[in-house]
């Protein structure tokens, strides 16, 4: 393991991310914030939704923003760099094991996911106006869950980015990311699926469910949510499985 090279690779990604900071934030955060404004502000103020919906929505919005940022930050560059131009080649030739290059990509994605979470939380809070009361009593718990969520999104981005081609990006969004967002318990708590017993257990394969429910448990513990310890355990399993899968895919994609 060559730390100097690892750090240089990381600073290259940081440099590129800083250059694209504004478009990147807009791409990842505008959509969730618009959703927050409509459902958390317009609908609640007009009385269509109860005011308590705000508290339920906030952790979900944070989860979606983090997951989208993490997946996007790793998958999109990989997809384009592994394409015809093979832009990634100079980094594959850097004096470091190629597995570590994949790990570095995951670290980059995690940082971006955490930044997105950090930005969207106060922003959503502001957009929703009065009546939101996230608790900061479980700060450590929240940090741990945020880390696990960041890792799962970045590792998922690695696996996705190494499995699809540029022409399938639209398909990735409509087949993987859109259903994940809708069935991710971000806009409603898991308990709300009680009237749909099959769906309720089917959505459990969706990692976003644990992200939303975990953050819900940490931020607004008064809202019903899946047991936090269970969430942490499942997220850890998902993290390692996705990381393992992503590393394997990266290996086979990187070597011919």
């Amino acid at each position, binding site marked *: 393991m060559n730390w100097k090279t690892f750090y240089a690779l990381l600073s*290259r990604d940081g*440099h590129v991310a800083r250059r694209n900071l504004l478009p990147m934030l807009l791409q990842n955060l505008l959509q969730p914030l618009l959703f927050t404004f409509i459902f958390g502000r317009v609908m609640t103020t007009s009385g269509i939704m109860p005011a308590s919906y705000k508290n339920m929505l906030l952790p979900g919005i944070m989860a979606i923003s983090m997951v989208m940022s993490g997946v996007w930050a790793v998958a999109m560059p990989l997809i384009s760099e592994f394409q015809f131009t*093979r*832009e990634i080649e100079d980094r594959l030739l850097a*004096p470091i094991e190629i597995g570590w290059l994949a790990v570095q990509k995951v670290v980059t994605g995690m940082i971006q996911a955490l930044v997105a979470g950090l930005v969207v939380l106060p922003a959503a809070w502001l957009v929703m106006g009065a009546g939101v009361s996230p608790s900061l009593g479980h700060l450590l718990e929240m940090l741990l869950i945020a880390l696990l969520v960041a890792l799962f999104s970045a590792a998922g981005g690695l696996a996705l980015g190494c499995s699809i081609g540029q022409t399938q990006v639209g398909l990735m969004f409509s087949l993987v990311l859109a259903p994940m967002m809708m069935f991710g318990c971000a806009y409603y708590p898991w308990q709300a699926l009680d009237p749909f017993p099959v769906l309720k257990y089917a959505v459990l394969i969706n990692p976003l469910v644990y992200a939303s429910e975990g953050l819900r448990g940490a931020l607004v513990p008064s809202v019903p949510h899946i047991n936090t310890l269970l969430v942490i355990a499942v997220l850890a399993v998902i993290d390692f499985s996705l990381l393992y899968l992503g590393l394997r895919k990266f290996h086979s994609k990187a070597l011919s």
Partner: protein
Amino acid sequence: MGVGIRTENLRKVYDTPPPMAARAGGFGFSAQRGGKDKEKAKRKFEVVALDDVSFEIRPGEIFGLLGPNGAGKSTTIGILTTRTQPTAGRAFLGDIDIWREPVKAKLLIGVVPQRPNLDFALTAREILVFHGAYFGQSAKERECKADELLERFKLTDRATHMVRTFSGGMMQRLSIARAMMHDPEVLFLDEPSAGLDPQTRLLLWETIRDYNRVGKTIVLTTHYMDEADALCERLVIIDHGKIIAQGTPKELKQSIPGGYLLRLRFNRTPEELLSELRLLPGVTEVRSNDGTGTDVYAGSGGPLIGPIVNAAQAAGIEVLDVHISEPSLETLFLHHTGRSLRD
């Protein structure tokens, strides 16, 4: 001084389509996905790119891999640069087994790819500076080196531009600058002069010779005979994944019987003159092209001029033009494979 390379019985079989081909990724809906079909598809894609390839590159020499498209040149470069995993066989860079210790190998090599693969998210200068950083150079060291290389490759005025705006020739120059950034012991160039204009090509050759002069080993692939001839101290000729000849360009050319070509022009070429020429010592073939031009294939060049002129004068024919072509690698390739290089 310099680092040599040795390969032992390299073999590479691709069981999936080559990586560049448009391959359906995770969401492919093609028939190849089914259980039984999968096996069939795999067998169908089996391509032997290299078969029992062994050669040695001496430290500090310019070594060429010559062959037509699809011969296995890029696969060989891929294996030597840690990018393509061999199916069997071993490759050594100095004492380092490239596939056991790829990181150590990567520290010693610089690679100029066939197609520029520059980092499109960065400017020209950043590409060099980050490349230096990947190789552990200090900030000062890499800034200096980057400026020096930009100057040398005439890219200083475009240093702060994103490379996506660069022309093909500029990208090529930057690729070479990048490969030299960490001062590698062995420089690999895969088809370096493909698509370059003649002048740029000569500049490239000069750059390669300069880098070689400081004791570095150069490995290049080409399908241009004249390039291999002008640049390489030794070379191997590859076709269909197999080495068909190796040696210095001179040795290789001498191995062809009757390798000289004399292109003659007379004021008229009666059949009697052609028969006369066929009888001259060492002549293997005489071809008359549309009356004016005559090609004589022979085992020697200059010594035949006298007898040819004498034969022509005796028949009252005037010699208008004489041109001697030395045995070329083109003829060699033809001789070994029965095909022209450009087939």
